[in-house]
Every structure is written in C-alpha cells, then in structure tokens.
C-alpha cells in the first residue's frame, strides 16, 4: 500500500504520545499510526458492510476479512470510498427510507479512511478474527421450490465475462403468488448479477407472454420478502426468464469456471394482492439537455408505492424521483446513482400512498464527480451519458 499518512491521525497520535508540537500549515503525510486498528475497529465494519462479497470464495476480487487480506488493498479502499462506489447500492438521500439501502455511516467512513491512510495497524493480535468463508445458504431459509438452472454455464479460460439467458419452467399447475425470489449461486466467485422475470409460456402458434420482473439479484443482497397480503403473481405453468451476468476476477484469469445456480421461489400462504409494475420512461413531455433531463408520469389509479428500480445503468449520472400528490404534498421517493450492472430494487420501508392524479417526476443529471477526485486517483475525464435513455419501474399495489 502506498502510505498516505493522514492529518487527522497526526493530531491524535501526537497527543496520545504526549508530544506537543505546533501545527505548521502545509505539513502533510506525517508518520502516524491510525488510532483505529483492524481487529478492534475495521473488521466489524468490513464484516458487516463488505463481507458478503469480500470474503474468501466471494464474488469480489479480494477478501477483506483478515488484516493480511485487507492491508494490500488500502489505497483501493480509499479510492472506492472517496468515489462513493463502495459499498454499492447506497442511495443519495434518506437511507432509512428503504429496507435495503446500504452505505457507510459518517463514523464508519472515517474509521476506514483513517485506518487506510494511517499505517493500517492490526491492533491486538489476540483479537484476530476467525477465518471467514462465504455462507452458502438461503438467507430466507429453504425455498418452497428450488429450480436449478437447466444447463451448466462455462466461462472459458480466455473469457472474462459472459451473459447467459435461461428459460426455466416452474411446473406450477395453478396461479400462485410469490413473497420472495432468490438465487443461490453455484460458483459464487463469478455470479455477478442476475434478473428473474416471469412470463406465461407460448401457446401454440403464439409468442410467449410479456415478461414481468420478479427479482434483481446482486451478490451480498438478502432477498426482501414482501408484506403479508402482497405478492408477485405467478401464472400456472409459468416460465422464468433468468439472465445471469458471469464475471471472473483476476484471481481466475486463465482458468475455466463452471456454474449451475439455483433459483428459489417463496410462495405466499394465501392468495395475495398482485404487485404491479409501473414503467417510467420519457414521453412527449420530456425536456432536458446533456446536463439535466426530466420526464413525468401521472398515476391514473390510487396506488401504494412499494419499490423502485432502474432498468438502465448509467455512468456519471444521478437520478432523483419525486412524487407530487394532487393536494400538492411532495414526496421524495429516491435519489441514487444508477451504475451499470449494479441495478438494485430499492424497497421502501413503508408503502407510500400515492393517490390518483399524483405526478411522478424523474430527473436525471449528469454527475461529473471526476473533478472531485484527486488527480492521482482519477485522471480520466468523465464521459457523458445519454440521460434520455433512463428507464425505471415503480412497483405499486392498489
């Protein structure tokens, strides 16, 4: 790790060692050991916020679950935190509004940045964490139906990435409702993302029915079970359309990896109110330019907003979605950065009532954070995304 000694740590350690010095403006890079140690302070944070992926056998390119694992990646940790890239999937506003918006608290962020810039001390060796391995289990317990993907996928030794689509027959004989859908990777080190949609099978001489998204799966995410009384409708004899993104990390260069993941379906115990998908896309009302692009949709039915997810991934863009009810009350639904291949469905902690006539306004901004990064970290200028390509889906219930 290229040691970049922090100013904050300097003050603390000078104090702790009883040394009294004047502070000269312009001084930098002092040889200070962070007051935060891996065993005492850093491990609990990376275990809880990073450990689902950054663990031996996980999908991330390195484990952070021991001091020896984490230290060589100190500068990368610093870069990713300062860029706001890790942990992925955080929202820009009101994380407590959601069930699954990850992120670092101010204290956690400061602990990690102080540690990586302050000498990465290990702390009390007697407190070394026990070796961790990836937990290969269903977080919600065994599913009602476990459907292995129909074929094994092979990512060859000369391949880094592959996207594969599978059609999986559910074999159900009657209409059911799903409270949750999950994926158990077969080869967790390369299952980078997956989407699971449902459709009615093709009748004789006709195309298959339209797809409805059931789940967006990302490594490290626990599936969200919907509230009682609600569910995603699963028609009889439904087919699942499973699209998997496989991506190998540098650890598996020149190696062939195989995967056969399993999709798990969790049914409601009773018939439920079907969760609907409300697509948000630009229409003739859309206005904007390369810096800012906005469009809106007016609800024609009374609804409860349950979740929202992007169908488009955009680099260097941020999205803000606001609902304005007929009584002029305004609700900030979500603001986030829609990064490609990190599409997550954000579940509201509580359903948000949106009466008929409510206007949903989506605004997409060019968010060039490149100038914020120290030149040594991010010298490349940001490329401008096509803001008008943004598409989202709002999941609602009547």
């Amino acid at each position, binding site marked *: 790790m290229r040691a970049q000694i922090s100013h904050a740590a300097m*003050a603390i350690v000078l104090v702790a060692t009883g040394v*009294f010095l004047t502070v000269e403006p*312009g001084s930098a890079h002092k040889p200070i*050991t962070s*007051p935060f140690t891996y065993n005492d302070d850093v491990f609990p944070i990376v275990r809880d916020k990073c450990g689902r992926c950054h663990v031996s056998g996980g999908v991330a390119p390195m484990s952070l679950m021991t001091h020896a694992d984490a230290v060589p990646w100190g500068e990368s940790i610093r870069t990713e935190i300062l860029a706001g890239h890790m942990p992925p999937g955080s929202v820009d506003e009101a994380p407590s509004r959601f069930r699954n918006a990850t992120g670092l608290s*101010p*204290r956690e962020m400061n602990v990690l940045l102080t540690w990586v810039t302050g*000498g990465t001390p290990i702390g009390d060796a007697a407190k070394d964490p026990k070796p961790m391995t990836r937990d290969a289990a269903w977080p919600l317990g065994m599913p009602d139906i476990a459907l292995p993907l129909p074929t094994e996928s092979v990512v060859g030794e000369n391949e880094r990435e592959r996207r594969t689509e599978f059609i999986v027959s559910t074999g159900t004989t009657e209409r059911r409702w799903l409270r949750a859908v999950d994926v158990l990777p077969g080869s967790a080190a390369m299952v980078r993302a997956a989407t699971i949609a449902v459709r009615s099978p093709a009748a004789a001489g006709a195309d298959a029915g339209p797809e409805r998204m059931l789940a967006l799966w990302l490594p490290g995410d626990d599936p969200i079970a919907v509230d009682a009384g609600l569910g995603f409708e699963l028609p009889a004899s439904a087919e699942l359309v499973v699209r998997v993104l496989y991506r190998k990390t540098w650890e598996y260069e020149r190696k062939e990896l195989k995967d056969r993941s399993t999709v798990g379906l969790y049914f409601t115990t009773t018939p439920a109110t079907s969760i609907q998908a409300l697509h948000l896309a630009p229409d003739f009302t859309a206005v904007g330019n390369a810096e800012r692009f906005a469009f809106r949709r007016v609800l024609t039915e009374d609804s409860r907003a349950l979740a929202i997810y992007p169908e488009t991934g955009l680099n260097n863009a941020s999205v803000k979605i606001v609902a304005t009810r007929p009584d002029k009350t305004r609700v900030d639904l979500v603001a986030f950065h829609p990064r490609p291949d990190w599409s997550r469905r954000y579940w509201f902690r509580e359903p948000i009532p949106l009466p008929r006539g409510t206007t949903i306004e989506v605004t997409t901004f060019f968010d060039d954070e490149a100038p*914020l990064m120290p030149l040594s970290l991010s010298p490349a200028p940001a490329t401008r995304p096509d803001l008008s390509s943004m598409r989202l889906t709002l999941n609602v219930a009547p």
Partner: protein
Amino acid sequence: MDSAAMKPILTAAIVALTLATAIAQRGKPPAAPALPPIAMTCIHHPDVLESKPGVCPYCKLPLVPVRLDSAWMCPVHTTVTESNAGKCRMCGRQLVPVTVSLTWTCAADRATEHLEPGVCTDGSPRIGHRTLRAHGNHNPQHGGQFFMAPDSWHHLEGVHPSARLFRLYVYDDYGRPLAAAKVTDIQARVVTKETFDPATRKTTEVSAFPLKAARNRPYLEARIDPSTLPAEMTAKVKFGSDQPEYRFDFTFPAFSKEPAAPTARPSVTQPLSPSAAPATTPPVSSSELDPLTPAPIPVSMSGMLEQLAVREKQVGELIARGDFAAVWVPAFQAKDLAIALEPHVAHLASDKRDAGEPALARVVRTAWLLDAAGDVGNRAQIEAVYAAFKSAVTDALAAFSEFR
C-alpha cells in the same frame, strides 16, 4: 492572515481535550509515551508502509522493519533535527516538521543499525540517529508555496520573489532538490492570465511564460509581466516528454522571501511539557476560532453547529486566498463535528433525519477529498470539492436547524 507566517500552537488545553476525545473514541486510555511503533517498509520503495512482515507490492522484496517518528528539521541545515519545535541551532531559522526513521548504533559498529536504544558491548549507550523519510518534508524551503505532484513523487515550490519573477523549485519525494540534469528535463511554463469558457470548458492562455532551468541554480525561472498582489499564477508542468501535464495554482499574497536568519542566536528551545496542560479547557467561542488550530468539540449541539458553519467558511477563505495546503485543518475539524453530530440524528423529525444522515456522511467524505485535493494544488479541483463540501454542510445545518 498569512498562513505562512502563522505558528498556531496546539495549546495544552486543546491537547488535553483532544486526548479525551481520542480516549473516548477508542474506549481505552492511550499507551504511555514510548517509542513509535515499528512498521515494515521496502528498501527501494520507502512509501510502502505496512504493519506486518510481507513483500513489497512493487518489487516483491521482503519488507524490512523501520521505526518512524515526527521530528523538526532546519530547512537549510538538514543535519539539525530536533524532537520539538524551535529554531535551528546553527542559523536560528524556524524548524519545520518532517518525518524521520529512528535508528541506534554503537561507536564500535556503526554499520549495524538497531531499532531500539540500548547498551553497547562496551557498556556505553547506543547513539540515536534520525534519517529523513520519503514524503517527510512538505514544507516550503524558499518562502513560497509547496505542493505534491499527482504522481506522488515530485514536489514543487513556487516562489514569487519580485513583481517580474517566478521560480519553480522541484524536489523529490524526500523534499530534496532535484539534480540539475533532471531539472532540465522538465517542460514547464507559468501562466499569469488565462480565460475559461464554461460552455466549451476550454481554457485559453493569455499570458504564458516558459520556465527555463536557471544556470547553476536548482530551479526553473521565468521573467513575467509585472504582477500585482495578491498575485495568482499557474505552473503547468510535464516532468518528462511522455508524462501528463499537471497544473499547480499558486496565490502569492506577498512577494516570497527566503527564510531569514535572525541576527542573534536563539536561546535553547525548551520543550513543552505535558504537565503544562491546564486542568480545564475554557470554551472557545466560534467567532474566535483560528482556522489553523483545532478546537475542542463543543458539548452542546448548537455549539457544534455553530462551529461547523465557521469551519466551512474558513475552508472557503483559505481556498480563496490560495492557501490550499492549510485547508485540511478546518476541513477535518468539520469532519469531526459531523461525526459528533451523527448520534443526534436520531433526535430529528423523520424528514430532517432523512436529509441530515446523508448530509453528515457527505461532510466526512468531502472533508477527506479536501485533504487530498489540498496537497496537489489544483484550484479548479479543490474548488469543485469545496462546492460539494459546502453543499453538504449547508444541508446538514438545515437538517439540524431547530437546534441552532
């Protein structure tokens, strides 16, 4: 206030309170004053610093132990290093903070370096040595402004000794002047006037002057149009033909003056003693906060918020006057205030909590970005970071407005 002339003191009272903060953060008392801890480094890549044995990530050589410490060095007589701030024993110049490695040897065997003091075989105590480390000296040596290049190896000092003159000293990662032969490899110019078109994001240089290696001098120099103070100018530097061009924005509130030696030799510097700390710390009014001196975190939420607002303004003022290297002091104070405010988010109404929680995280993140940007001296970059920092502070203060 001219930061270059400032000597802000971490008062014993503030130290005591900061110590209490450090103890509270760690939940246990700090170690008794002792030798600095041993770190592991590479003999070829001294900026590699690990806490455990291993191999260098660059050259794969085994890491070797090193004991690093802060010390104070004479900017001219580099053999003079002291444990405490003060003045050079040889010339009386103010000592500057540096990073050193500590070793001990015996007179009978100077080749063998030990990492601890001790007793030699002849019964005499080992002799201690301090050796300057890479990135150990980020101090201007000729009265100018000092920046670290984004390549993390070169360091520069811009000097404006008179209205028609700009000099650029270039140092290595130890703060040592670059060899004359290497100085001639540098392609650089100083721009005293330029325009920027926000629509096209294009910068046009109006007045630019080539920086040429001075004969038998360790700097590049350019004759420029007469400046008026405060003088703003930009050095655009390529350290090699295949290297990117870096931008360094200097602001000179006054003409640079070489550090002068006083006429009389100073008296022996008396190190401050921890016992000098007063038992209690008087509260510091936000209006009295020195931008370059850390202050205790106020106990009351209103005090924290008031101080946060002051620190944000101080960051802006330092940037406005081009004192980029000092920005980290109030920025980190703001960061510490944000962390202290974090537990109080729970006391806010839900809509305010929604706004306050991410705003505090943004304060912390942008404070760290200010720290990094301040080192490299690119005005556009640090102003962009400051805009984000200011926005974060504004949002945090708005979320906590009922407590102000």
